[in-house]
């Protein structure tokens, strides 16, 4: 289990960080579950070590960028490839009630789990009725 905090970038610098042209990348399959306190996202990123994963919250965007790093023996010639690219990329737009400051993530056995809690004001509250 690796815990990490996604890097925060303000919306103003978003344009500068983007490479001029992005190469096509694999689209990782995801599960997204919402409960009353937040959203949990699971993404399959097999072959990605922790240091090759780049998880960012930029403005209202959650960006997942990851690079495959397989230890391949020298002089190997591929004969069959179902995974033919070495990058994963996927982006999500966060809605207003989610709190991008409190995103937490862990990567384990090639599965990325991202937890995005809802902002305090968007959490359900139980209102007690006063009896007089």
């Amino acid at each position, binding site marked *: 289990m690796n815990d990490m905090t996604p890097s925060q970038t303000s919306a103003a610098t978003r344009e500068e960080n983007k490479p001029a*042209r*992005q*190469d*096509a*990348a*694999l*689209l*990782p*399959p*995801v*599960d*997204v*579950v*919402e*409960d*009353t306190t937040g*959203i949990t996202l*699971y993404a*399959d*990123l*097999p*072959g*990605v*070590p922790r240091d090759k994963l780049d998880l960012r919250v930029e403005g209202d965007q959650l960006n997942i960028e990851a690079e495959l*790093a*397989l*230890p*391949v*023996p*020298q*002089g*190997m*010639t*591929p*004969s*069959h*490839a*179902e*995974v*033919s*690219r070495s990058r994963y990329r996927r982006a999500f737009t966060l809605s207003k009630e989610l709190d991008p400051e409190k995103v937490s993530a862990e990567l*384990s*056995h*090639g*599965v990325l789990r991202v937890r995005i809690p809802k902002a305090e004001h968007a959490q359900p509250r139980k209102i007690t009725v006063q009896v007089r």
Partner: protein
Amino acid sequence: MYRSLFPSDVFAELDRLQRDMGTLFDYSPSIRGIGRGGYPALNVGSTPTSVEIYAFAPGIDPAAVEINLDRGVLTIDGERKPSLPAGDEKTTLHLNERFDGRFRRVVSLPDDIDPASVTADYRDGVLHVSVKRRESAQPRRVEVQ
């Protein structure tokens, strides 16, 4: 001969065009490479001394995977438990693209492999099986007397 009819730049240009189109729509023939072809996706490669099989199987318990080699056929059997919590009224499943359940993939290996020397490891969600080729089948340099 076919290639000589076209300047090599044409291929480079087509390749670039295809890449650009893929980026434009964020979709290309292999973009759904994982999931569509079955779980786990397989890559196979070979070296002069071994055959290497990579199964992209994230989120499994490596102890519960069964790898069998029988008469040159490698079988990978296992199960991926659903990681989602049991649904109740308060949770909503917005996207459900990841595979769960039992899986089985079969690879036919070349004739010259040595069934006795197979190693497997699981790292970052990739199951890597390495099968050595037989000593006698490996290329040898013959000295001229």
